[in-house]
């Protein structure tokens, strides 16, 4: 089928473009004679993967994944729950939404040192930083999605004496799903940034912490590899979100 061929072509293109980017990087280093401590070659970067003792890639990547995933899913649960509560109570919405928006103006990075005082070092504070930086977009998009119901559709089900719960489960929530997912996609990027910043300042493990460690010895290859691993963590979370969206949202309703 043409559809299958289109898909194959798309995937081939994606892989080719990524490989080309790496090749261009390698060519630039080789031809431009760039000092390795300024910019390592891709091959040197990948070589750091073999030195497990020094970098503990698996452990550090797991730690970072835990803060990214933890912060992200916590934000999804809290963001969606709050949005639902706000949609049920106008009063709650009017009372708390402005406060939350104001609180969101706090630069979350600045909270790092405070979180250290409160919670000491470790995974917990990092999850909290990732959470605090990415939960607002989810709250806002979900709120909007829950409100996007045609009033006439509500009329229609009101003539059938639909309960509030029925309206919520059959109409509002499924209708809001595309919005929730578009919020989640924005949140993935923020969660990764939040977790890494947390590890820069309030951690003794994780890829962010590793970067600070190897920076001291000008080990740019190690730093680059850490950046690549962080990216991979983000990409895998993004892929999970896309997959879930594919399962839960009818193609026509997806927001690209």
């Amino acid at each position, binding site marked *: 089928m043409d559809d299958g061929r289109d898909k194959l072509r798309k995937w081939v293109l994606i892989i080719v473009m990524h490989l080309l980017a790496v090749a261009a990087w390698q060519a630039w280093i080789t031809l431009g004679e760039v000092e390795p401590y300024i910019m390592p070659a891709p091959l040197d970067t990948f070589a750091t993967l073999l030195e497990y003792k020094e970098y503990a890639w698996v452990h550090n990547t797991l730690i970072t994944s835990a803060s990214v995933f933890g912060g992200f899913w916590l934000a999804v649960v809290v963001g969606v729950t709050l949005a639902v509560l706000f949609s049920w109570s106008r009063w709650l919405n009017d009372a708390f939404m402005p406060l939350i928006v104001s609180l969101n103006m706090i630069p979350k990075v600045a909270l790092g040192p405070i979180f250290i005082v409160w919670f000491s070092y470790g995974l917990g504070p990092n999850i909290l930083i990732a959470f605090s930086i990415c939960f607002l977009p989810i709250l806002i998009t979900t709120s909007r999605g829950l409100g996007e119901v*045609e009033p*006439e*559709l509500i*009329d*229609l*089900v*009101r*003539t*059938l*004496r*639909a309960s509030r719960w*029925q309206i919520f489960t*059959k*109409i509002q929530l*499924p*209708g809001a*799903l595309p919005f929730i997912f578009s919020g989640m996609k924005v949140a993935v990027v923020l969660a990764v940034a939040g977790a890494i910043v947390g590890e820069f300042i309030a951690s003794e493990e994780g890829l962010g912490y590793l970067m600070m460690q190897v920076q001291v010895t000008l080990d740019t290859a190690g730093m680059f590899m850490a950046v690549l691993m962080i990216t991979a963590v983000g990409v895998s979370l993004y892929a999970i979100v896309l997959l879930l969206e594919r399962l839960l*949202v*009818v193609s*026509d*309703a997806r927001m690209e």
Partner: protein
Amino acid sequence: MNSQPSFIRLDGVRKVYRGRREDFLAVSDVTFDVQAGELVSMVGPSGCGKTTVLKILAGLHSHEEGSVRIGSEADKFDPARDIGMVFQQPLLLKWRNVLDNVLLPAEILGLNMAEARDRAGHLLDMVGLSGFAESYPYELSGGMQQRAAIARALVHDPKLILMDEPFGALDALTREKMNLELLRIWGESGKTIVFVTHGIQEAVFLGSRVVVLTAGPARMADNFLVELPYPRTLDMKTQETFGDYTRRIYKLLGME
């Protein structure tokens, strides 16, 4: 006249929307009867209150003066179960396929789903959507979506169908086709239909009775039987009687 009590009786109905600064007269002087099995067209310009009357019949709006009675001792009417609504927009849930959309009222009312499924299948045949049960709304044309909406309005076997400009968003040709389809469906289902439109030709062509409302002030201006035989055909529109009826309405609306 008929010795049996009418199915619907509106008597001196008046509705005022209370505004902050001033009140707004939505409709007044609405007095008409609908016999069981009739198709009554309510026609008038925007702002004449025809949708308001429909919403009063649906139990979605209250009224200040006058009385509204639906059903009788012999012909009981349950407002939760006996109303089917169709609006200008199909208002299908885009994450549900056509069959599941049609089943929505049955789910809300908690009907026996096996029976409802059977019935929905027959209704899809009746509205000309056999073979589209598994399709999603975005795969259907506007006219087909509106057919699905009509099937949804019939699925819980209500006694009264309220239609608010159901073909207003369709192109002229599709609209004529849907008019004929509606007459056929009405003939097959034997339902009482109140059909709101701003199309004068449409009102006369469909209705066994036409109720005319005027704007400024919003009030009922006329109520007459259309004595054209069923089944109605498109060439009736060129007949003199048809022209007499439409002229009568144009005159009331001050357009002649």
